[in-house]
């Protein structure tokens, strides 16, 4: 018992004196709770989603727009709104003019009920029927699963490996050679990139065969996206692994990055309808851009021009993270 207490005491001292780790250990659960409350909290969720063809929804202007349990979403672009209706991502599309105009997906049971509700308030509304099957959740989830796997592989694979090299003195030995920090980091990036692309390709082929998925868009474009997306997340891992020497601190920081991305990047569910600032935060994460672009290509058949803003964000993020990583890189223990 005496020996156990001695070891327990020493370990407690070590933990308490590692202030960075301590801070993250305390901070992480608080941030997770806050993140969950922002995503899942708030007022009760509405039963129906209705798109309104307008810059903003003026609820007082129409009796229908004052209905309870219906979420009215302003949609300035008709084509994009109709696309969402076709895939049953909204239940009805309403244009508040005189006489009012609405579109309903005749394949959607929720659309049927939303239409009854509309006609109770707006009897003279003109009907424009569209058809289209609901997008399968599994198809929508597929890019998220691939992205999540890439994120974990990039962040933890690279982060811990560099940390282990530093702690063992291997980095110090490399420092005594002509090898530069940039060369070392580039080698790590390329090694992990090759591995991730290989694993992701196997996952893609395997899962697509199991669930019967066919990408609507170009496969080479998906490969390009996977390369740039993976690079951005490997580079993000290097910004953390570049400097620190404590497994617990690095683990905490990696968790601090992965959990918000898990919750906010749209792996499991769409953030449509969540507070605007939550969406704004989500778009600071590389994974959000990668998934948005992947879904656009895989589900909607988007081309290079359509996902170019996402690719640009990922490329710039990669360069910024790599530059910071190279600048802050340390070969030896602090």
């Amino acid at each position: 018992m005496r020996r156990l207490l001695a070891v327990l005491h020493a370990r407690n001292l070590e933990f308490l004196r590692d202030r960075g780790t301590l801070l993250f250990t305390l901070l992480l659960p608080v941030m997770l709770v806050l993140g969950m409350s922002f995503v899942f909290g708030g007022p009760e969720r509405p039963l129906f989603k209705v798109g309104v063809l307008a810059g903003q929804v003026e609820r007082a202007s129409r009796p229908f727009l004052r209905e309870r349990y219906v979420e009215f979403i302003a949609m300035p672009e008709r084509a994009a709104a109709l696309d969402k209706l076709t895939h049953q991502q909204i239940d009805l599309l309403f244009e508040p003019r005189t006489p009012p105009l609405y579109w309903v997906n005749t394949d959607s049971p929720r659309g049927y009920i939303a239409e009854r509700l509309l006609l109770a308030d707006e009897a003279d509304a003109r009907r424009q029927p569209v058809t289209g099957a609901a997008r399968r959740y599994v198809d929508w989830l597929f890019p998220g699963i691939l992205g999540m796997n890439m994120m974990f592989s990039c962040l933890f694979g690279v982060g811990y490996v560099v940390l282990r090299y530093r702690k063992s003195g291997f980095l110090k030995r490399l420092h005594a050679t002509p090898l530069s920090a940039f060369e070392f980091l580039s080698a790590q990036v390329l090694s992990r990139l090759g591995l991730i692309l290989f694993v992701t390709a196997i996952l893609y082929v395997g899962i697509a065969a199991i669930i019967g998925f066919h990408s609507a868009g170009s496969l080479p474009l998906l490969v390009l996206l996977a390369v740039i997306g993976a690079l951005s997340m490997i580079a993000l891992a290097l910004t953390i692994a570049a400097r620190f020497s404590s497994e617990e601190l690095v683990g905490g920081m990696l968790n601090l990055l992965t959990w918000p991305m898990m919750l906010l990047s749209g792996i499991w569910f769409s953030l449509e309808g969540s507070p605007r600032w939550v969406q704004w935060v989500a778009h600071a994460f590389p994974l959000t851009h990668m998934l948005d672009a992947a879904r656009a290509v895989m589900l909607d058949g988007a081309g290079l021009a359509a996902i170019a803003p996402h690719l640009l964000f990922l490329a710039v993020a990669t360069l910024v993270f790599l530059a910071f990583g190279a600048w802050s890189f340390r070969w030896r223990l602090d």
Partner: protein
Amino acid sequence: MTIPVIEVHRLVKQYPATTAVDGVSFSVPQGACFGLLGPNGAGKTTTVEIMEGILPPTSGEVRYCGEPLGARFREDAGILFQKTALQDFLTVRQSIALFRGLYSRGLDVDEVIRLCSLEKLAERDNRKLSGGQQQRLLLAIALVNDPKVLFLDEPTTGLDPQARRNFWQLVESIKAQRKTIILTTHYMEEAELLCDEIVILDRGRIVAQGPPRRLLHEHFAEVLLELPRQDFPPAARTLPLRILDARDRIEITTDDLEGTLRTLLAAQVPLTQLRIRPANLEDLFLQLTGTELRP
């Protein structure tokens, strides 16, 4: 005049709580085996790591062949650190090949394996080597670029006597190729055997510098008499002799052996376990610092 391979000029390394290196200057001539000696905490590893370009000095300068340390030095230097882990899951040959790939010139991997007697271990996982084998592998890695200057930082610490002697033989063979070697050690026997010139550091400062034989000659024209501490009565400490306390013994230095023996006999000091021997580097350190080496 030949430019020294390494010049260390007024080197200082300060940490918040201590000054590890305090104004050290020396130069290492071409082809010499140069020893940095001192107890743990003397500042020798800090000094050598600054010389290797691994640590930045607080002030002072290290020059390689008359130039500040730079790309040329990194190509020309071979380094064996006190502790180094290698990449996991690599064989001995793969580990050497990895480092060979980091230099623009050097020896063939098989040649290095042969030089360090690693032929039978070449395909073994580097994690499955004994301490002596591991040191031979690290020496092979240090030699892979055919270095002009080789740093060996306490290379035999923790090795058994046989492995240590094997390692010394390897270093002797490297010396025979007229490579410049910088050796840090706290084994005096190692320094006496291998080094052409030494610097003794204590508390960050140089306390002696020169060829070992010359230093011993300068400081010890005498012989040393060793007696067990329990045989040396407290009253004998007042005798007109140069007496030093070692771990478990008393050491007396003298150039008049007969006279000293007569004095000890007159003071009724038991001489049954008396040992008379010439001075060595450990004695030199003892005399210069008043303390024993602390390996």
